[in-house]
């Protein structure tokens, strides 16, 4: 941080900003402890800071850099507050030394140290030089009590919003460097196909095209550095590069994935589920419990592959020189960008500078830095500074998709209506496929989170996994497997309730029970408190008028889910008339412990809900003859404003003094709340996503 003569404070933003609001939330924590007025604070994006040590690398800015899994806030919660508190302490100590008083006689007001006993007040700006020269004290500076917060937990606007609305903000696509050229790549249309040969005569005739060459991709089944083989075109402008690419004539080798298809994938899943799979969880005695059950319920649910499609297509600036390299990228994982560039160039990582721009959406896509590796390859081959630009088609066809899967659910209910047996059997393409050193028996771990609800609530519970090795690349899609599992589990609970004559809300409340900590070993643990979900679902149900009389064709649905440490619930009211669905009203609630930056929590809950609905309503990636069938927003139709009802409320429910992340919690329960509402309105159960035209 830097305190200027005029009292303004610049705080370094070490994390990538992908729209989640960290550029605002982290400085709020620093400013709180530093004790400065918020309107004096501005931010500056920091590059990747890594320092070489004897046995590897360490972080320059006091902690890791990278955003994923809703950890950006929680992983910085101690660090940022302590940084502010330490700086304030040094300012106080500098003032005390100058005034010749004890440190304990000084305190602060925003922007200044005050010393009542000498009746002095010294602005921070006057103390900075002295404070910076002082050694750190040996004892740890204590942090403020929650009740004393003036900034954390208050409504603050996005710190750099003015630059955004005036078009000044620089994203990756906006990178402009001296002597920079522009590059695009024609990637293999068939999964894992390699270039056999190509004719670039016409491409080279396009005005502005400077160079054309082959890019070698990974072999089928091997870990990825880049996704696909192809042919790169470098030109003096983006458009010239695109035109050059369109003029290429490429012959592709036959790929082992040339017959991959969604049709076969789904058939294989059906067949797999007829056998016994890998048992990954087996609490109690499922077989005995289901045999003794008064009633049993069984259904299958299908969750499709989907693409991330951040609105800013992938891009990266790279300038590889003999002994150093400069990368400017929109990325969620700058250290991954550094590793990708090192892998391509062979340069030591300390000679690779990675700068981060504001990122036009992450959603998990930019955890993987394949586009950084591609850009480094092109710059290394040409020796030029280049900016690689993907088109929307490149992005939709070359993604690390959320895995699709077929879930088979079983439940046994006793004559009191209590669920006594539960099984989830999943056949899917694991996200962990093609990860280096990943044993087959661990592939399930990305798709089934064994500690999720209702484990430790239902005594006899089993989970089984079947891996389908379709060639589609897979990756982390915002709230990864929670999006699939929440849809499946929250739909199935509804079905159990309906088929055993119980109320869906009451059944959930019975299962969730009182506030208590259950062990949770997965990401978001170490504990899961089902009572927090109970509070939320009761709240949203009451808000929306659950149980009220509704006209024909109208229905209310509810759902709730625990995601990576945070809790959320949705209630929705819909109308279905002549097969036409209208979402009338949405009530969403989140419990993220302490809401550090409530404005962003609200934004993430709104955006997450809309993402969940948009995806459930219309999105699916399919494959035929080894080729992704979708290409742009006409056949991958993200929701527009008309989908979003005017009645849309969000609620932040405080719990304790410990913040959780918020970027992913808003999604998982949105889709099942919608499909449960559709069932309530029509009696039609949606067991396959997307909903698309199933209602007509």
């Amino acid at each position, binding site marked *: 941080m830097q305190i200027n003569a005029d009292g303004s404070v610049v705080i370094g933003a070490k994390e990538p900003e992908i729209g989640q609001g960290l550029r605002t939330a982290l400085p709020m924590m620093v400013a709180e402890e530093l004790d400065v007025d918020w309107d004096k604070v501005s931010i500056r994006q920091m590059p990747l800071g890594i320092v070489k040590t004897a046995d590897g690398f360490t972080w320059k800015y006091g902690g890791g850099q990278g955003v994923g899994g809703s950890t950006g806030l929680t992983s910085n919660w101690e660090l940022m507050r302590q940084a502010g508190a330490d700086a304030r302490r040094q300012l106080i100590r500098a003032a005390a030394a100058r005034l010749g008083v004890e440190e304990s006689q000084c305190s602060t007001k925003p922007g200044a140290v005050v010393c009542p006993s000498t009746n002095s007040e010294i602005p921070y700006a006057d103390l900075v030089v002295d404070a910076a020269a002082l050694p750190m004290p040996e004892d740890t500076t204590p942090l403020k009590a929650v009740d004393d917060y003036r900034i954390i937990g208050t409504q603050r606007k996005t710190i750099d919003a003015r630059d955004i609305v005036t*078009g000044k903000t620089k994203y990756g696509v906006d990178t402009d460097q001296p002597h920079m050229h522009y590059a695009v790549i024609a990637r293999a249309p068939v999964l894992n196909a390699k270039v056999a040969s190509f004719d670039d005569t016409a491409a080279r005739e396009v005005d502005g095209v400077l160079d054309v060459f082959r890019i070698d991709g990974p072999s089928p089944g091997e870990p990825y550095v880049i996704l696909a083989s192809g042919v790169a075109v470098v030109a003096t402008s983006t458009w010239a590069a695109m035109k050059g690419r369109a003029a290429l004539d490429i012959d592709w080798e036959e790929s082992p994935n040339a017959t991959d298809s969604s049709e076969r994938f789904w058939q294989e899943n059906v067949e797999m589920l007829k056998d016994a799979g890998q048992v990954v969880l087996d609490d109690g005695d499922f077989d005995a419990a289901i045999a003794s059950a008064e009633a049993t319920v069984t259904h299958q649910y299908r969750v499709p592959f989907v693409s991330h499609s951040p*609105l800013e297509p992938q891009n990266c600036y790279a300038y590889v020189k003999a002994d150093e390299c400069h990368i400017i990228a929109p990325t969620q994982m700058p250290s991954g960008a550094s590793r990708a560039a090192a892998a391509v160039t062979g340069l030591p990582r300390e000679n690779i500078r990675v700068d981060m721009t504001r990122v*036009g959406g992450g959603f998990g896509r930019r955890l993987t830095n394949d586009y950084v590796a591609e850009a480094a390859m092109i710059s290394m081959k040409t020796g030029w500074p280049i900016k690689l630009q993907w088109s929307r088609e490149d992005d939709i066809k070359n993604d690390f998709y959320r895995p699709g899967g077929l879930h088979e659910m079983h439940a046994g209910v006793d004559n009191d209506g209590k669920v006594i047996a539960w099984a989830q059997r999943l056949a899917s393409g694991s996200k962990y496929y093609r990860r280096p050193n990943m044993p087959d028996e661990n592939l399930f771990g990305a798709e089934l989170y064994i500690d999720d609800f209702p484990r430790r609530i239902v005594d006899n519970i089993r989970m089984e996994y079947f891996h389908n090795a379709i060639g589609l690349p897979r990756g982390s899609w915002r709230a990864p497997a929670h999006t699939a599992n929440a849809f499946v589990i929250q739909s199935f609970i509804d079905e159990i309730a309906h088929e055993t004559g119980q109320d869906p809300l009451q059944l959930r409340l019975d299962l969730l029970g009182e506030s208590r900590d259950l062990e949770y070993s997965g990401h978001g643990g170490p504990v899961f408190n089902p009572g927090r979900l109970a509070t939320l679902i009761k709240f949203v149900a009451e808000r929306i008028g659950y149980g009220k009389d509704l006209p024909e064709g109208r229905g209310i649905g509810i759902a709730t889910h625990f995601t990576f440490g945070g809790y959320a619930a949705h209630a929705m009211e819909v109308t279905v008339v002549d097969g036409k669905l209208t979402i009338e009203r949405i009530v969403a609630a989140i419990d993220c412990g302490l809401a550090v930056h409530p404005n962003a929590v609200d934004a993430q809950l*709104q955006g997450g809900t809309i993402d969940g609905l948009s995806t459930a309503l219309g999105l699916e990636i399919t494959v035929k003859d080894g080729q992704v069938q979708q290409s*742009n927003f006409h056949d991958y139709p993200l929701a*527009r404003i008309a989908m979003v009802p005017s009645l849309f409320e969000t609620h932040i429910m405080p719990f304790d003094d410990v913040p959780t992340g918020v970027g992913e919690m808003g999604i998982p329960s949105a889709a099942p709340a919608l499909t449960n509402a559709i069932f309530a309105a029509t009696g039609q159960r949606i067991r396959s996503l997307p909903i698309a035209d199933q209602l007509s």
Partner: protein
Amino acid sequence: MVSFKINSEEVSYEGDADTPLLWVIRDHLRLTGTKFGCGVGQCGACTVHVDGAAQRSCVMPVSAIDGRDITTIEGLAPSADELHPVQQAWLENDVPQCGYCQAGQIMAAVDFLKNNPSPSDEDINNGVTNICRCGTYVRIRKAIHRAAELSAGEES
């Protein structure tokens, strides 16, 4: 050669006549506030005003704008200190998440409000079709209503 005005400045372009206006604005004129999202007229991230009307510049060849008057997000505000009411409303409602779509959203909303000075939600649903991948639609709707209010206030 194509000559036109952009944000009140006379400029010209001598390259390919079929170059989409978007790429002339971004790569040639180096005004990067106008964004590339889809390249096929679907998302609206590239929205600019051509003679005051919102257009998706990724599907408009530069040859079609000879002699015309373009405004981009950089030229929307009346001055460096004063924002356009739509930008003001966007700030008040803190609309942006990643922010990538927002220049296009704002340019589209300005034109929409010209034709619908006090829109209903229904009007917005029918008339505003830009994509926001982050799902800022709740706040976009609020900001459009607020901008309508601000503009009405200005006129009275």
